[in-house]
């Protein structure tokens, strides 16, 4: 797996080191308060106890390897960049829904589906999950499979495939974890399959890769 150096960072202090746990507890407590809706000391005390229990249960999760042998720990997300990424994603959802609704209601239904595979160089599994979800939510594309570094994506018309292989979204996701990255270095091995025979071949190849 290609690792890209994440730049120099100062040695983490206590707040930075346990940032994941702190954010998790704050979010869980906020969820408890919203769902319970009672702001007296007693329910809040129960909430704090439950949140502490859940956070304690989740402590070990980061150190259990995934089926691919990767770990979830050891990566710090840039929280400020995540806050900028979410509005962009909401805008993409609106655009893509309008686009697919247009395709649906068009009398001749101008679709030309194809399957695109490419290799991504995102640094960790969570970044890949974010990218997969974002691909599914952006106009005209749907993540079919992620196997190691290879993404298999279904695109519904010709134009969207150019956006996909330009690496723009990969670099946006990559910037959540890396201090800097450019579209060119994030995405390679692009393969566009328009004919059914090629797609079938690629699928058989995928099946061989499975355990």
């Amino acid at each position: 797996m290609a690792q890209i150096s994440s730049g120099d960072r100062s040695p983490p202090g206590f707040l930075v080191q346990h940032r994941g746990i702190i954010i998790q507890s704050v979010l869980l407590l906020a969820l408890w308060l919203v769902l319970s809706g009672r702001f007296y000391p007693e329910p809040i005390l129960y909430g704090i106890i439950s949140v502490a229990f859940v956070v304690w249960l989740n402590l070990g999760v980061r150190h259990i390897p995934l089926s691919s042998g990767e770990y979830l720990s050891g990566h710090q997300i840039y929280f400020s960049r995540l806050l900028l990424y979410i509005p962009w994603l909401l805008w993409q959802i609106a655009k893509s829904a309008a686009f697919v609704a247009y395709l649906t209601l068009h009398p001749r239904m101008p679709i030309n589906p194809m399957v695109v595979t490419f290799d991504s160089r995102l640094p960790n599994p969570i970044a890949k999950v974010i990218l997969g979800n974002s691909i599914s939510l952006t106009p005209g594309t749907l993540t079919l499979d992620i196997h190691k570094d290879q993404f298999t994506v279904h695109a519904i018309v010709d134009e969207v495939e150019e956006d996909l292989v330009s690496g723009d979204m990969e670099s946006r996701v990559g910037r959540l974890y890396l201090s800097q990255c450019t579209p060119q270095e994030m995405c390679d091995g692009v393969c566009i399959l328009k004919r059914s025979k090629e797609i079938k071949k690629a699928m058989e190849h995928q099946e061989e890769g499975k355990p």
Partner: protein
Amino acid sequence: MVVIDALAIILMLAGAAFMLAGSIGILRFPDVYCRAHAATKVDTLGIMLFILGLAVFEGFNLVSVKMLLVAAFVALTSPVAAHALSRRAMLHGVKPWTRKQKKEG
């Protein structure tokens, strides 16, 4: 109050229109992958607009915050559901419909 009601009605009508478009898409598109496109994106925006309209109608209180939570969870889970469906379809060898194939055959 009239402005807020009008805004809520517009949002809910837009949401219902998108839901309708998504349902038509599920019926019209040729294969499982294209139908997953319609079901994921259009319906996600439809549900989100509808819930946003209800939240605007309700005003800012606990109920509307809960509704916004529902909208956020729908936005998180619907691409995962579509991915799970289409990945299963791919592993079982469902071939994507292509326009070229039609012309050649």
